[in-house]
């Protein structure tokens, strides 16, 4: 087993994935017609590993997560696809079964901790809730477990702070509370939707360290949704890059970032101001993300792609292998290095 210095061994990828999403498609009905927000998204997350869903705003990464968890808004609808977790298709089961799995098998952490916590209940009550509901514990026992949990996620003086309200905590502390609630029942899969975007960089470092240690302690599969490339480079093992609702490239972070096989990935990497000479022109991607109402025929990225040609305009590329365990949806993956 050759161990890569910064990321866990790659052999886990062969094992059965904890969460396998296939062909997920979500449509939204708007006033001017139906919009395809997520288009045939397929990915797999393995235990002990972090998969990053990387993309800019509007690419559908958050909607993919909310679709899997079952929190879509009424105007959005899953029109096809499956999300298999522990032999159960989350998108096909009934409400009761899904509720059983929430927290025990699948958990989600959102960006804005203040709105995700109920301001009227103390923190202790909210943390004890998963234990009382899913494991039928008595109140005292559940509170004890809640204190343990708070200590585990690094909240100082947990016994006293049990009786505080969410607004009395700082942003970083609230995010720890959310994470605590999410991992309380040792779920198989943890989805983190932009968990640190609203936090300071030093707090972000603490939270990501916490997530990493929880991941190995509970052997969870973590799906990290973010737009921050540097964060993906440091914290994730595998990455799936999304653009306009589709996945355009997948692979291990080390490989994809060192040698991208899709022009969008390359464009993103060029946009990060790293090592560029001060004041030098950043090779940004021209134009703007497409209006989801008018996605063109053919490749979704054609309007901004320097490699676009006739075949790109007529045929939509599908995810094709470009190496061992990596794929790209591009007609000219080998020419990306010249971009």
């Amino acid at each position, binding site marked *: 087993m050759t161990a890569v210095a910064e990321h866990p061994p790659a052999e886990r990828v062969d094992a059965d994935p904890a969460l396998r999403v296939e062909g997920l498609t979500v449509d*939204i*009905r*708007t*006033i*001017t017609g139906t*919009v395809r*927000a997520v288009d045939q998204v397929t990915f797999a997350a393995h235990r002990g590993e972090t998969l990053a869903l990387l993309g800019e*705003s*509007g690419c559908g990464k*958050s*909607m993919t997560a*909310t679709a899997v968890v*079952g929190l*879509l*808004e*009424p*105007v*959005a*609808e*899953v029109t096809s696809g499956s999300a298999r977790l522990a032999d159960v298709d989350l998108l096909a089961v009934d*409400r009761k079964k*899904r509720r059983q799995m929430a927290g025990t098998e699948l958990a989600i952490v959102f*960006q804005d901790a203040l709105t995700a916590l109920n301001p009227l209940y103390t923190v202790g009550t909210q943390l004890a809730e998963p234990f009382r509901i899913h494991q039928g514990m008595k109140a005292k026992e559940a509170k004890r477990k809640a204190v343990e949990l708070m200590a585990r996620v690094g909240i100082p003086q947990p016994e006293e702070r049990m009786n505080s309200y969410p607004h009395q905590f700082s942003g970083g502390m609230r995010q720890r509370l959310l994470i605590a609630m999410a991992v309380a029942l040792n779920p198989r899969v943890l989805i983190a939707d*932009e968990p640190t*975007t609203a936090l300071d960089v030093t707090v972000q470092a603490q939270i990501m360290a916490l997530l990493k240690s929880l991941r190995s302690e509970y052997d969870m599969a973590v799906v990290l949704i973010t737009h921050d490339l540097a964060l993906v480079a440091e914290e994730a093992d595998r990455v799936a890059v999304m653009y306009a609702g589709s996945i355009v490239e997948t692979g291990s972070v080390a490989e994809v970032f060192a040698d991208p096989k899709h022009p969008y990935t390359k464009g993103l990497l060029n946009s990060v101001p790293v090592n560029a000479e001060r004041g030098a022109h950043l090779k940004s991607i021209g134009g703007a993300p497409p*209006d*989801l*109402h008018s996605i063109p025929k053919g490749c979704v990225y054609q309007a901004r792609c320097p490699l676009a040609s006739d075949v790109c305009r007529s045929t939509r590329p599908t995810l094709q292998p470009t190496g061992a365990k990596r794929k790209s949806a591009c007609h000219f993956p080998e020419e990306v290095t010249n971009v």
Partner: protein
Amino acid sequence: MSTQLDLVPVKPTTAIVGADDSKRSGRSLWFRMLVNDRVAACAAAVLALVFLTALIGPMLMGHLATHIDLDNSNQAPFTLAHGWANVLGTDPLGRSMLARLIVACQTTLSVAIPAVVISAVVGSVVGMWAGYYRGWRETIAMRVADVIMSFPSLLLAVVVLYVFSPSAANIVLVLAITRIPVYLRTARAESAELSSRIFVDAARTFGASGTSIITRHVLPIVLPTLLTVATLDFCYVMLAESSLSFLGIGIQPPDVSWGLMVAQGRTYLHTAWWLSFFPGLAIVITTVSATILAAWARIATDPAQRWRLTVPQKRLSRFAKTTKALS
């Protein structure tokens, strides 16, 4: 972070497929927006009719309103047996209801509109000023508003109109003063919230004075809310005027207003219901139309919401239906 509903089109004013961008300003746009919303169009038509009646009605029908005909007193409506002018019935003195309604329209509007306008202007200006600057200005303005509000308005009206004569001008003044707090508080609240918005900060950074910021930024945003409040207030003022008439200190006969007609018809409710009913109906129709039009104006003046009025109505209702949540 964008939410799912941020996927509403980036260019909402071109929501009609194929609509061209160039027709975006000018009177044609407003007209199209009004026509597209059928309910608002009806309301506008009704209001136009009411104003027209107030303007020229008395000239045409004035004499009929005062023509006493005791043989025809308290005739029921909806019959042409007593002449076309009496199609809505007659009052105890045999005067035509229709004619009286038309003449009363002018009186009522000439009391209600000035009262609403005065209270709206004074209340809004003071409110916006107090809300923008905060501090002692805000405190004083709010306390004044509290004082006015805590006076039973009818009592104040009775006292004032009893001491001075109940002329139309005094009635307008009294009604205006008692209604100022509503505008003051609304304007102050919105102005205070807006004064901390970033685009207001931006205006401060290039040295704009408080007055110009209020005129340029606060007023256009607060105006639709004030308009809505004003139309509701319009109804209140008309009814308040009727209470005053009921107490005998409002519009004095032989002048006639809808409120006075309602008050006068009260004793005949069992026998001649139409005496109170039709003026009451007139009040309701006018205020409802004004409210509907204010709601339309609120959307039409907001560039972000304008697209709702350019999309065909059928599409709007399909969008409003939602499926069961997936769970």
